Structures are given as C-alpha cells and as structure tokens.
C-alpha cells in the first residue's frame, strides 16, 4: 500500500469518526431534558430575548435543518455563534476555542516534556539494570504515579510549591512561570505510564537476536543500546506519547480545575453545565478532530522510526 492510499483511507475513516461523534453529540443534546434558553437567558427573561436566543441557536428550525446548519458553520470555519445574548453577530465558537487553545497547547507541551524527560531515563535504566534495586525503585515510582489520583496530587503540589515554599506562582496568576506547577502535576502522572512502557519495550528488545548480533560483533554497549535497542524500543513508546498528547490537547480537566486555568476541557465542561449547544458542538468537534489527527500522525511516525513498516 502506498503512503498516498494509506492517507486517503485514514483521512476518510477519520472524517467518518468525527461525523459520528458530531451526530452522537447532537442527538444527545436534543434528547436530554432541559431548555438551553433557560440556562443562557435566565428563567424570567423577557420573551423577546428568549426568541432571539432561540433563533440564534436555530432551535426554531427542524432537527435535520439544525444539523445541516451546524455542518455549514463547520465549513465556513466559525463553528457557529456562542449566542450568549442572542446577538447573531456576537463572538463565534471558533473565537472561543482559539482563545483557550494556546493555554491548552502550552500545558500539553510542557506536561509532555516533563513526562518524557523523567520517563525515558527511568524506563531505560530500569530495563538495563533489570532485577536490581533500581528496577524495583522505578517500578514503585511509576506504579504510584498511576495510582495516586490527580485530585489529591495536584492540590498538594499547589500547596507545596505555592503556599509552603512560595517559589512558584499559584492559580489566577499569569506569565510563563505560572505553568511550572500544572505542567509538573500533569507530567508526573503521564511519566508513570510512559516509564512502564519504555521499560517493558526495552526489556523485550534487549532479548532480540539483532541485539545479540550487535554485541557479538564487538560493538560497544553504548552503541548497542542507542543505535540498535533504543530505536526499536521506541515504537510502542511513541504510540503512548502520541495518545497521551492527544488526550492532553482535549484538556486536562482536573488540572485546569485545580489551578483555575482556562483550556479546552474547562470550556467544554462549562458549556455542558450551561447547556450552550453551539459551544458544546464546536468544542466536541475540535476535540474529536485533534484525536483523529494525533492518531494519524502517530501512525505516520512509525514509518520514520521503523523502515520495515514503510515497506509493509
């Protein structure tokens, strides 16, 4: 299969998945009880304003017409109107997503950086020194990283870094340094799974014939590890990094909540709570698209690290 037909096939199934998620969200929003106008306008708003919001959201049209309207807003790139007070020329959903996206992106990149920097050395060292105290220590660290809930860890990090030490900025503060504590809270959690993956992948690869061959031909241990073992061991690690990055981009809800950070996840949770249909639809679409794109990039990156897959 050529790379071109692979891309076409994957983009097609990705678009189908995004459409499926959109239909599911749409159906879901309209199935559940509760009037969105009540939430946006307030219960005792004058009829005129209620009409305006209703019209802005397209609620006065039939369900199929509403969905087609939504698809139209996807095509024109606005994702629809936020309809805060029924003003049809008000801010668009795309504008709201664009506003929070830099925060989400910054947290995802910094958190992933913390995770990779901690996890790779830990996992590799544990695999090389398998069965020693180092391996045991790495296992304990990564298992506790998985098991300790972020709901406890994040507030404690905040307490320690912001209140007890006073070295780091706390919630509601802005500036580049405000990301240190949230990134650390996100990163340590991700590190756990990544370190486990790196270790088991590395252990597997170190038992392969080609590693024995490389050693037998007299290659230095450093070159064996770096050129032969690590490169092959990285494949499943890349998968996990990619998938984790995808879920980070959809918003680290707990961390955003604890550190009072804006972000895609927080935006969606708020929109769901206030039943703002256009914002929910738009944010869900963006999140699904990110997921599909990240998965595709992960698959494509296999070819870069492993030529065998490119040929297959």
């Amino acid at each position, binding site marked *: 299969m050529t790379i071109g037909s692979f891309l076409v096939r994957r983009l097609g199934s990705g678009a189908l*998945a995004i459409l*499926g998620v959109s239909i*599911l969200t749409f159906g879901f929003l309209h199935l559940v009880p*509760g009037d969105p106008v009540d939430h946006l306008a307030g219960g005792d708003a004058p009829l005129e304003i209620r009409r305006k919001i209703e019209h802005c959201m397209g609620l006065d049209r039939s369900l199929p017409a509403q969905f087609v309207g939504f698809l139209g807003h996807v095509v024109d790139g606005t994702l629809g109107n936020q309809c805060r007070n029924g003003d049809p020329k008000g801010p668009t959903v795309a504008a709201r997503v664009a506003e929070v996206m830099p925060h989400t992106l910054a947290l995802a990149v910094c958190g992933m950086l913390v995770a990779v920097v901690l996890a790779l050395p830990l996992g590799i060292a544990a695999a090389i020194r398998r069965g020693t105290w180092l391996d045991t220590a790495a296992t304990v660290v990564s*298992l506790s990283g998985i098991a300790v809930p972020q709901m406890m860890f994040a*507030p404690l990090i905040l*307490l320690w870094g912001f209140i007890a030490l006073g070295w780091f900025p706390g919630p509601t503060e802005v500036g580049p340094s405000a990301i240190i504590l949230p990134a650390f809270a996100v990163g340590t*959690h991700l590190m756990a799974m990544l370190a486990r993956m790196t270790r088991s992948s590395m252990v*597997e690869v170190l038992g392969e014939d080609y590693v024995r061959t490389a050693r037998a031909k007299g290659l230095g241990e450093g070159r064996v590890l770096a050129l032969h073992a690590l490169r092959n061991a990285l494949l499943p690690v890349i998968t996990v990094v990619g998938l984790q990055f995808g879920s980070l981009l959809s918003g680290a809800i707990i961390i955003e909540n604890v550190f009072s950070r804006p972000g895609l996840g927080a935006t969606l949770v708020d929109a769901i709570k206030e039943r703002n249909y256009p914002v929910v639809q738009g944010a869900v679409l963006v999140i699904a698209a990110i997921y599909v794109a990240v998965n595709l990039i992960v698959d494509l990156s296999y070819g870069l690290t492993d030529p065998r897959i490119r040929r297959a």
Partner: protein
Amino acid sequence: MTGPADRAAGRRRGPALSPSAWLGLVMLAVYVIAGIAGPWLAPYDLTRPHVELAHQFEAGSAAHWLGTDASGRDALSQLLWGARSALELSVIVVAISSAIGLLVGTVAGWFGGAVDEIVMRTVDVLMAFPGILLNIAIVATVARPGVPLTIAALCANGWVGYARVARGQVLALRDRDYVAAAVALGASNRRIMLRHLVPNLMGPAMVQMSFGLGAVIIVEASLSFLGIGPQLDYTWGAMLDQARNFLWNTDWVRVYALVPGLAITWVVLGANLLGDGLRDRFDPRQRGRGGAGAAGAAGPSGRA
C-alpha cells in the same frame, strides 16, 4: 515483572500468580471487606445529618482517629461509607460494561462482515473522544445526577475495552480445531459462542476487568471532585473536593485531604498489581507488545 524464561513457561502452562499479584488481590480484598462492612464498622452513624462547627477539622484523637471534616463529622466513618459507595459503583459498572462488551465483541468477531463493521465503527467513534468528557456530558444532563445515571454514564464507553479484547480473542480462537469440530458437529452459533468461545476468552477479559475496577474508581472520584458526581452521601471524590477548599486554613486539613486520596491510591494500586499479574498469567505475549493492544491496556487512564 517477568523475564523471558517466565514468559516461555507461561506459554506452556501458565505460572501461578506472582507475589505482587497476590499483594494486589489482598489489597482489593481489604477494600471489598471495608466496602461491605464499612457502614457497620464506622464508629459514628452518618445517616443522621449533624453539623458541629465547634469540632471543625479536629486533629486525630481517641474519639476521632482520623480527625473531623469541615462540619465536624468523623473522617474515618466517612472513609468507610465512601468505600461502600465506591464498591457498589465499581462492581456494578464493571459487571455491566464487561457483560455488554464481551457479548458485542464475541458476536462481532464470530460473525464478522457487516456486524463486525458496525461494531468496530461504533468503537472507533467512542475511541475518538476522551472518555471522561463523555461521562461528564451524560452526567451533566441533569442537575443532581443519581447513582443510576452515573452508572449509565460510566458504562456508555466502558464496554468498548471489553469488546476489543473479546473480538481480538475470538478472531484468534475461531480457527482452532475444537471450534472447527464444533461447527462440523452442527453446533449452533449460540452454543459455539457460549460454550467454546466465551470460556476461552475469560482470562484476558479478567485482566481488563481488573484494570477497569481501578479506572472506574478514578473516574467516579473525578466526577465527584468536579461537583457532578452521583448524589451519594459520602464519596471519596467529594471528600477530596471538600478538603482542597479548606487546604489553606489549617494544618489538619492536609491530613484530611490525604485520607480519601490514599484510599483511592490503595484500590487503584491493588487493581493494577492484580491486573499485571493476571496479564502475565493469561496472556504472556501481551506484555510489552507494541501497538494499539498494549496502549489500550496500558493502565487506568485508558478506558474502564
């Protein structure tokens, strides 16, 4: 953690559970006992609401071993009541999700064709969306979500993992001689699936259940922490939520914050240790295998 030698042995017969898996089993047993007997073991009766602000955030004492909360209620009692909530919810969610998932996955894998296509596309759609956001979307449809709605929300995407495991297993099992023999003998599809396929995929399914148990606890606590959890009287997530609001006040609050957090850690750790051990026992090759299979079972942050 097993080496290549253990793995080779596992392929032949399957070793006994490792010590760490036994540790996980014991940890889960403690949790189950606390969950069943919790409300009776609790030193204080929490069914009668009472607020004693005079006893707010007291330190641990003979009267209150783990201290008290913002309303002066006993923390140990809340912990035990919370164990009951967590146990009920996690067992029901895992039972329903696994039943649906195994059924759907087995049917998809056995019949293939259009059925398989529909199931796998549905799985793709649910996988194309972060799990907890879907849970929130469902729970947030009502102002005060009850236990049934929370269970439904967690099952809505919880079955996906089991369906993938079951389908993969069935695809591998369907070419086995004993299945061919059953087909040749004229066994019905239902009989083949129930008597020959399902029993043989229970091993990997149990691995998934073990990880799922930990995942459900985390998701439920996350929902309660965000203030949209099931409207139960006492849950660990709600305790964590309460604690972080008072984190700045007094020193003892920090201990109160640790209590439910460590309880969650205990359960998730036990579930993961057991899951790892079961995985080595039932499917030695799964360990360290790259691709979606390994990523899907990588841990509690995956799907329940």
